[in-house]
């Protein structure tokens, strides 16, 4: 029933990654997936079955908005961009994530 990403996407990390890639500019859905794939040195693949439910959730939560634009292939498509709320959310997520990874690394190093 649940389409889990094959490439071991840490659960719960996708919204943060989406927020991060949208931080500099607005992108359409496919570009978001591409960018995450590229930036992770092709380690993380974002499946369609996970990307769109997550985007819908973020729309409902008000972290991102979607507006019509024209794609590089000259097609009418929706571009997602961060809202101020999304920006705040990204900041807290990043700092939380930083703290947790730091803590995990501390354990891995010393234990």
């Amino acid at each position, binding site marked *: 029933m649940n389409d889990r990403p094959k490439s071991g996407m840490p659960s719960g990390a996708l919204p943060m990654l989406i927020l991060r890639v949208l931080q500099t500019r607005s992108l359409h859905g496919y570009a978001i997936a591409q960018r995450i794939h590229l930036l992770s040195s092709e380690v993380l693949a974002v499946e369609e*079955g996970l990307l769109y439910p997550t985007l819908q959730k973020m729309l409902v939560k008000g972290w991102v908005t979607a507006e019509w634009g024209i794609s590089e292939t000259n097609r009418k498509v929706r571009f997602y961009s961060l809202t101020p709320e999304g920006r705040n959310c990204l900041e807290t997520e990043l700092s939380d994530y930083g703290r947790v990874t730091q803590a995990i690394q501390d354990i891995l190093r010393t234990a």
Partner: protein
Amino acid sequence: MGEIFRRIRYLLHRRRFDQELESDMEFHREMAAREGRNNFGNTLRMREQAREAWGWTWLGRLGQDLRYAARTLGRSPGFTLTAVLVLAIGIGVNVSAFSLFNMVALKPLPVPDPGSIVRLERRSPQSYTSEMPYASAIFYRDHAKSLSAMMAVLGVPPMEIDGDLQPTSASFATANYFTELGTVAAYGRMFDRVREGAANSAPVAVLSYGLWQRRFGADPSVVGRTIHLNGKPATVIGITPDAFPTLGGQHPEIWLPIAQQPYFVQGSKVLTDPSAGSVRMWGRLAAGASPKMAAQELLALTNELRRQHPKDIWDNEYIDIKPGAHLQVMQPEMYRVAAMVAVLTLLILAVACANLGGLLLARAVTREHEMGIRIAIGASRGRIFRQLCTESLLLAFLGAAAGLGLSYAVMQVVLSRLGAPKWVTATPDWRVLLFTIGISVVAALFFGLTPALQIARQRQRKTIARQVLIGAQVAASCVLLIVAGLLVRASLHALYTDPGFGYQQLVSIDPELGQHGYTPADAQAFLTQMQSRLLAVPGVKSVSLVKLPPLGHTVSRADTEIDGHPVAIYPNWVDAGFFRTMGIPLVLGRSFYAGEKNAVIVSQSLARKQWPGQNPIGQKFKNGDDSFLVVGVAGNARVNAINDDDAVEVYWPAQLADMADMVVMVKEAGEPGNLPPIVKSISASLDPKLFPETRQIKMLYHDNVLGVERVAMVVSLIGFVAVLVAGVGIIGLVSFSVSQRLKEIAIRMALGAKKVQVLAAVLRQFAWPIVIGMGVGTGIAAAASKVLRRALYGVDNLDPLSYVAAIGVLGAIVVLAALLPTRRALRLDLAKTLHYE
């Protein structure tokens, strides 16, 4: 907060958002294909998953379930119709009962600011009275800052208009009564606070709309005309509106200003006497005052009143404050009656639900195929359970709609039969609608939950659930029938049993001497003359005096204990000839001598309780600190407690001090009918300012019995409806179980089983639930009917005849219901049945 709005926006524009989502995903796919990656995912499913983020999936499922349920029910119209009908009866009866309660006790009167109107009554831990002295009411009005207004109504005996033979009901009200209620006159004007507030103002009267139509031919020029009320001229100033809400639901035909009461009732000191309980009092809470604050302030004022009139205020007396702007101010006893009615109507619902539950279970077996397919293609138990619950809810709401209609019709009939005030309508208000929704959800839970659980767990063939449902139906019907039986017996008993006195030929004449300012000596002189003049009238057999006449306006009762058992003693004050006039036999001893003191006559029932096995004559009967010599024992006569068989009576010899309160009892040889005009002329010749109230005891008695008869009729009707519903349910279940076992029966019969044995095999599973249901029902009825005792007119609440009759009727119907469908099994064509399948 923003998220909720966004979600709602997604719900409202879901089509557009869905299209956008679709376009996004299509684009994604195009791009992926361009880069040579194929996606084999199910687009529809993925879109569905994405949409789940909006949080409205449940709504869509509900819609699906509802559509599916509607289709399923539509495919079996016979079942649906039966179910809706059964539910309409069960829910309709409850909604009707609630509508009546709502009308009487919950719905505020259509008057300005009804919430601030309160009913004020005297109470103490030991005592209660609905009426208070007018002088006290004025005292509270003048000193209470938490009350912005005080309204009082003084009920009086009917008055004669311009020498009519039939007197007309009348009440005195404070001059602010109509302004506080916002009453607008149909013609003329209502009381004016200033003009009608003073005792010396010109005498006026307001007529009711009904009286104006009947007695005055709806002539608007009546306003301004002078009429005579008990001989006193008064100007008609106005006509009340047709739909006129009054406090306490009282609708006298004539309204008079209370300040002018001494003018209309000459010699009366009711308004100034601090001990005469006379008016019903209402108040309006001042802005910002809570009932609690008012109660505290009034308590302080009551204590102040006690300092002024130490004799007239009880120990620990306080003013009880209740919401006042309802048709009826509920007393604790009324809540008990309401609770009893609620139990009875809920029993009907229980029968209906148990019945429907059985039908649903039976239907489940025929739906096994459908359920099997649904489970096979991946429906979870939860999903099927939810689907079945939706079906039940849909049924319940259909039933509720029908029940609401039924209740509306019932209310229309009830309102017109009861002669309810014009402003009361049968149209359900929001309380009734809310109640209907609530009760239909409860009903859906009752009848739908067990079958849904059983079906979802694929256990519909288990018999235990069916047996429990049958038992419950039988038990509930049993209770209803027994209560109905008791009430029918009670009304028959009341109709055909001697209340202990010869009520047929009695007439009571109340000259109301005390209310006209008579001294005891004057009263005695008047009564002596009146009695001798009455005795001279042909047909009058005997005349005597009594303080509390049968079925009178006041009843006195003292609750005490004898040997630890509570006993209600009804005292009365009588003269020597009372027992002969009333036709009450003196079993032992003698009647009073004229002018006798310190003597007492007790009823047989009291003598038996107080001095079991001893001769009561010559015993001492204690009353407070004094003791009295028992000179006689009278037969049991429920003079003041027609409905209470446990009542016992004590008769005291009337003394000179009682004379102003005495009522004349007359016994006639034949039918009393021509007496009122004679009484009128005798009284007028003795004292023209008196207008005695002449009442025929037989009529009052029949009116009283009529009430019980009506209740018995309604309860019997309800009881029979319940039994019929239960009967239909049992027919359905037995015939289902026969058809389920048709093959087995055929095989048994082919192998040579006797018909009786086959029958026994089929019916065995129902025998125990029915027997247990009857036992439980009888037990519940026996325990619950204790509450009814007072209303049973002396029928024991364990009256064996009622129980046997009720159980007999129920048993007969149940057996009939069980046997009818089995006939099919006995007429079975064996060859055909065994060839089938």
